[in-house]
């Protein structure tokens, strides 16, 4: 009896979890769109959705770590601009493409660690610190590129064009690798536990023997690395970069994390929800396109989806509270 009750409880838990709700939502949107325009569920459309999802997905992975641990990085978009421009300039100057890519990743880690360290140094909210640093990164990118777009003229294509079995693009795989990495990190490692502990109560975490400041720098470094790889894949896909390349990505990423059900106040959430959040956001623009809706509506739907996700989260919390009495 007790066992079946527990089983039922677990089943109910999964069925009411944010990732599952999102999954159902994604399926529903796909079916509706496909009913109106049967070209939606085709390989090339899925391809387009997934390739958009790769960049956003990896960045959102990092944002998940930061949001759960109680931090925000709103300089991400500017970092993407700076990093892709740097990579492009290095490649155009004749540097080995792989080396240039890795240097770009290193630059992202550096920028991100600077963000984290400054917030510790000034004891200031990360949102404000990254507002400032983002502006600085943007300016550096503008100065470096003199405001011009950096085109690669067909170089550095190997990442985006590589396909497993001639079919499955390498980039999708990298998206999955990113998510699996963060999933395992959050579940099975000390670092993951630190993310949750610091997010729920940094003071308790500190007194329990966690070196909170060192951890903060670690979280920013992890996020920076993920952003760096996202930049590499994005540059390879679009073959051009400019200072504004990443504009708005920080908000999309945080949006995806929130849609995925992670608490904006920290301490709760997971990367599975973020994954579905990313897919949902990436689908919207393609779906709008295929439904022949005016593209101006795209951001309207972005906002709407985030609000719906917040409503679902609020409803669920209300139900839990009611259940407890």
């Amino acid at each position, binding site marked *: 009896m007790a066992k079946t009750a527990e089983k039922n409880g677990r089943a109910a838990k999964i069925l009411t979890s944010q990732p599952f709700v999102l999954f159902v939502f994604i399926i529903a949107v796909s079916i509706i769109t496909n009913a109106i325009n049967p070209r939606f569920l085709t390989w090339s459309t899925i391809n387009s959705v997934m390739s958009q999802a790769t960049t956003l997905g990896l960045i959102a992975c990092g944002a998940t770590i930061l949001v759960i641990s109680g931090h925000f990085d709103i300089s991400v978009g500017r970092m993407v601009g700076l990093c892709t421009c740097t990579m492009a300039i290095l490649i155009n100057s004749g540097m080995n493409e792989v080396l240039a890519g890795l240097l770009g990743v290193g630059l992202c880690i550096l920028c991100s660690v600077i963000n984290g360290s400054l917030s510790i140094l000034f004891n200031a909210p990360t949102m404000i610190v990254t507002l400032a640093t983002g502006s600085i990164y943007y300016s550096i990118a503008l100065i470096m590129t003199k405001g011009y777009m950096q085109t690669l003229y067909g170089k550095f294509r190997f990442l985006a064009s590589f396909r497993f079995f001639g079919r499955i693009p390498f980039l999708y795989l990298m998206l999955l690798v990113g998510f699996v990495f963060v999933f395992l990190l959050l*579940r*099975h*490692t*000390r*670092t993951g*536990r630190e993310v*949750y*502990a610091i997010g*729920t*109560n940094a*003071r*308790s*975490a*500190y*007194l*329990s*023997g*966690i*070196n909170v400041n060192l951890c903060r720098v670690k979280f920013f470094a992890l996020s920076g690395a993920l952003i760096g790889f996202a930049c590499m894949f994005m540059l390879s896909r679009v073959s051009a970069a400019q200072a504004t390349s990443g504009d708005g990505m920080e908000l999309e990423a945080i949006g995806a994390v929130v849609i995925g059900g992670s*608490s904006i106040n920290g*301490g*709760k959430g997971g990367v599975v929800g973020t994954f579905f959040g990313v897919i949902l956001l990436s689908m919207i623009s393609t779906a709008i396109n295929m439904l022949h809706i005016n593209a101006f509506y795209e951001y309207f739907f972005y906002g709407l989806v985030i609000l719906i996700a917040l409503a679902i989260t609020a409803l669920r919390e209300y139900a839990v509270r009611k259940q*407890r009495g």
Partner: protein
Amino acid sequence: MEHLLELKDISKSYSGVLVLSGVEVTLDAGEVLCLVGENGAGKSTLIKIVSGVVTPDTGTIRVMGNVCEKMTPRQAINLGIATIYQDIDLVDNLTVADNVFLGCEIRTRLGTVDRKKQEEQTGKLLDRLELHGISPDVLLEDLSTAQKQCVQIVKALRNEARILILDEPTASLGDEETRMLLRMVRELATKSGIGIIYISHYIEELFEIGDRMLILKDGRQVSVRNVKETTQDQVIRDMIGRDASSFYHREYFDPGKRVLRISHYANRRTVHDVSLEIRSGEVFGLGGLVGAGRSELVRMVYGVDRKESGKLLLDGVDITPKNPWDAIGRGIYMISEDRKGEGLLNLRSVRENIMVTHNERREFINLTKEAEAVNDLVDQFEIRLPGIEAEVTSLSGGNQQKAIIARCVADPGEIYIFDEPTKGVDVGAKEEIYGHILNLAKQDKFIIIISSDMPELLAMSDRIGVMREGVLAGIVETKDTGEEELMRMYLGLD
């Protein structure tokens, strides 16, 4: 004649724990009523009820004959009840007059603040209290603490307070200032006919200023005594009560041979050069009033709070920790008195809460092995829970505390510091926690325990170090010490 304030059968409990029950008292115009009791006796709850911050579960409050049900703080103020809390809540960068009229400024016809009129009226009030040293137009930050207290009283008078509640007004004042404040309060009562409720730890002060005393113990009203007809001894006896015999009986055993030396610990403000020695296997109690520097001392020992000086020596070897993880690495654990703010990972599972310290030892966590370890600890500490994945805040206070103790023994430790380990814990769980603490002592560990509950401290400790105003006032063997004697040491009498 009608009473200014009349309380009848006032009771209040928080999540099943009774903090106040059956309080009946009156306050007349021109009278000073003192509230007396140990830490946690219910004094603060009582004044919060009178000032409308807390609604009592049962009982009636009458203010000047009118029954006040579900009083809000605003209503209380309108009824003429002014509360002055220990911490000064005035704005430092406004002038005295602006502070006094904050929230109900006098307006000119144009709707701007009429500074002139405000300063004039403030000046009158200051004159009435014979506070000639304070000018209405100076900034508050330029005043001394005592003067700020006076401004708070002026502010209360501006609201035409009939009842004035003063919560430890002299806690941060020097001798001279205290005397000035006491004189002023006394005059307010006799000359202006204001009823005053006065709280202070300093018993002598109460005898100087009070007309009557309401003595509370564990939320119950022990007695109401006329100051003129009672003695300090009688009041102290009332404060500690007489039911110590029903308390926990611990098992005594011989302490071990190792020695932990806390050597010359000090910070600038709250702890002044404290040194003491503890034997292994001994339960060492730290007693004293709130603010005596007990928690501050152990927090320095654990490496959380900054210290000016101090070394921790185990058998002569320096083991002074620099920070909590350094402390834990050396086998030192501290359980903070602030369970919610500094102990629990509130949103996380019991499992994560218990293993958080242990998990700092390696990067990869084997979930199966971890679950086994957690289940073992849950059994060992008899933590009652729906499952180890349950959110820690869904547990009762006692089980939360047991989970935190379990966290500290997940790895072998040497030194355990318990700061108010049974705060907010029900009686049954208290005894279990005592058992676990003694168990650690039996394993030849060093135990330091802080408790504001005197019977608990006496029952648990082998020796008690009494702290007073940041210094170690003395160390007593619990076997030949009674509560009365201990209370006298806390208060610094004879």
